[in-house]
């Protein structure tokens, strides 16, 4: 949808001399030459094509974002606009000093990101390198590893619940930890539950990373491998010094995707234990405060603003770096 309107203006106004086929077609259809390239109808079409997405974008992204920032400085129960009360920084003060779940949530979001970068990402790269070697049944393995990414996170949460359930779950049944006195509470114990969920999240993330790296590896020029083989480099040296450096664009994508995954982590945890102690996340705090009957819309918006600020802190340096590179190019 979004590519359609941005690309069509170029399509509609071909530069003069853009190929003989285009020229003859234009000559046949528009006899007045290039005095009026666009009919009124075309302009209307273009206006709509550029206008509609702009309106949608402004309404759905900017207006809502600014409304949410404004609401963060108010208290509102969601009933009638006249019940919105301006409270300044009270929501943030309350959040930073009184909310016992807030700092753990920030911490868990960070742990989430670090864990995703440290475990499933290298694992995904490893799998991709193995699958890139044209081994037999490569397609089968690819499908198997990628399947968790295709499944809905809610389903994944449900499946892992069956594994972690303290009474009837797979793990506790296998190791006999479902008897009184031996309980291992994977879901409720705050020392364990975050890691239990992270295993589930990593399991999914590794497949995602594998596909990204596999695509990157397919783009590596085979002559590079040949050259390094001729120079006598072994497999590890080839990978470290030749292949991995050429994967730089893929690494950037992987980094951004992982940051996004860490910040928007929600569904898996919500299905798993609704963000009980040990697994609090900012996204879940926002939901708990805004959605549902609680309707602390001002307070929830304040948490959302914190999440927004964290996202900006991460994304802005990346954007600056990207634009600088483009300008240099």
């Amino acid at each position, binding site marked *: 949808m979004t590519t359609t309107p941005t690309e069509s203006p170029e*399509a*509609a106004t071909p530069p003069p001399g853009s190929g003989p086929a285009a020229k003859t077609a234009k000559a046949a259809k528009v006899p007045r030459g290039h005095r009026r390239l666009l009919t009124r109808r075309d302009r209307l079409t273009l206006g709509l094509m550029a206008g509609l997405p702009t309106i949608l974008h402004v309404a759905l992204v900017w207006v809502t974002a600014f409304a949410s920032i404004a609401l963060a400085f108010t208290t509102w129960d969601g009933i009638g606009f006249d019940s919105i009360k301006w409270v300044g920084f009270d929501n943030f003060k309350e959040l930073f000093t009184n909310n016992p779940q807030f700092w753990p949530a920030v911490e868990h979001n960070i742990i989430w990101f670090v864990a995703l970068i440290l475990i499933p990402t290298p694992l995904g790269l490893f799998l991709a390198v193995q699958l890139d070697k044209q081994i037999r049944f490569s397609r089968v393995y690819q499908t198997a590893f990628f399947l968790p990414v295709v499944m809905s996170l809610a389903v994944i949460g449900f499946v892992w619940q069956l594994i972690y359930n303290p009474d009837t779950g797979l793990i506790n049944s296998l190791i006999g930890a479902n008897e009184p006195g031996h309980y291992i509470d994977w879901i409720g114990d705050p020392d364990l539950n975050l890691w239990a969920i992270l295993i589930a999240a990593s399991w999914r993330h590794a497949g995602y990373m594998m596909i990204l790296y596999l695509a990157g590896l397919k783009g590596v020029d085979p002559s590079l491998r040949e050259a390094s083989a001729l120079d006598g480099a072994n497999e590890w040296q080839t990978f470290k010094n030749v292949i991995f450096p050429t994967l730089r664009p893929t690494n950037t994508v992987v980094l951004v995707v992982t940051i996004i995954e860490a910040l928007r982590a929600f569904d898996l945890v919500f299905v798993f234990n609704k963000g009980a102690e040990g697994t609090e996340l900012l996204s879940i705090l926002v939901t708990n405060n805004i959605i549902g009957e609680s309707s602390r819309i001002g307070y929830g918006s304040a948490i959302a603003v914190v999440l927004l600020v964290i996202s900006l802190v991460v994304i802005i340096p990346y954007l600056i770096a990207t634009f600088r590179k483009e300008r240099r190019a």
Partner: protein
Amino acid sequence: MHLTPSGLAVPGPSRRTLLRGVGGAAALGAGVPLLSACGGSGSSAGDSKTVTLGSNASDAVPKKAFAEIYAAFKKQSGITVDVNTKDHNTFQEQINTYLQGTPDDVFHWFAGYRMQFFAEKGLANPIDDVWDKIGGNFPEAMKKLSQGADGKFYFVPLYTYPWALFYRKSVFAEKGYEVPTTWDQLIALCKQMEKDKLVPIAFGDKDAWPAMGTFDQLNFRTNGYDFHVELMAGKASWTDAKVRKVFDLWAELLPYHQEGAVGRTWQDAAQTLASKKAGMYLLGTFVGQQFTNKDDLDDLDFFAFPEIDPAYGQDTVEAPTDGFMMSKSPKNKAGAVKLMEFLGTPEAEQIYLKADPNVVAASTKADISSYTPMQKKAYEMISGAKTLTQFMDRDSRPDFTSTVMQPALQKFIRDPKGIDSLLSSIERQKKTIFAS
């Protein structure tokens, strides 16, 4: 994408048809919220022969039971009830927006504070005229539950169910246990059960609300109904020594609860009672839903939470009550009043109870001859109660209970030692929430 120069006719979708598609999709996108806002009520606006009703009864059994009530109402009055059913949890979560939009004439809701909140916000219609007719059908406690803070009636109760300690008669008979009536007896029984290799009290708090039920019982047994209401309304302090005492008692009882409660659903906990691995379970009568075997269900029994302070005895019963309210500006008010009057009759309640044997009628006039022994007991317990509470999340502000109390109680269950800092944290958060 068809990258063709302007005006060139190409087979397949052209830019313009594509645009038309985009426009159509946008129009559709704009139309969807409108459509859903009208949902169920738009078709019958102003029709005096139809009353619209917003229902949260999305489960098959209650849905069918309600449909039978409305069929009976149609037979009696000739008015059709146009039901707009939503998923139970979704209904609850969207209630704010639902009531501010174009709500149905009559809607399902809960008694107590949660009803009073919407009454106070002007989102519900007072129905004193309905109560003039149906008042005689209900006991005093139910009348109190149906009134807003302004003393007007806003609610028609349909059914109710008690919270109590459930046990299996066969287990108690086999081991020679007696039903405890005091705190000391309860502790002694727990100790005995532990010796007999039973989990004394089954417990699952993964959903975060069951622990609130335990707190309610301990609090009104220890400090009485009046203090409980004050505490729930945000007036009494959570750092009060009285509250501290409740948590001390709870900490004494907690070691006899099933381990790993925060990771267990109430359904799994109920299974431990059903499989005779646990001795008791504190829950509402809906625990019976988990007893799918008829013999097991017949073996299930319950008793009121034991007395803690003799001054309050066992005179308070936690009995969440479900029923109906009228929205602020019903399209067919006369019809809605008639429907509410019908819903307040024993007939309507009996139709419902036939389908759901885990609850009892809110009216004292309902015929109890067809009740199961458990329903009879529940009925006696509720009608004999001096005061009725609803449940923590129905008696207090839902934002306070869901964002503060649920995580706090889960924390306490896991680590009962940090109670003082937990209580002062609750009190601080309570002040901000109740001040807004």
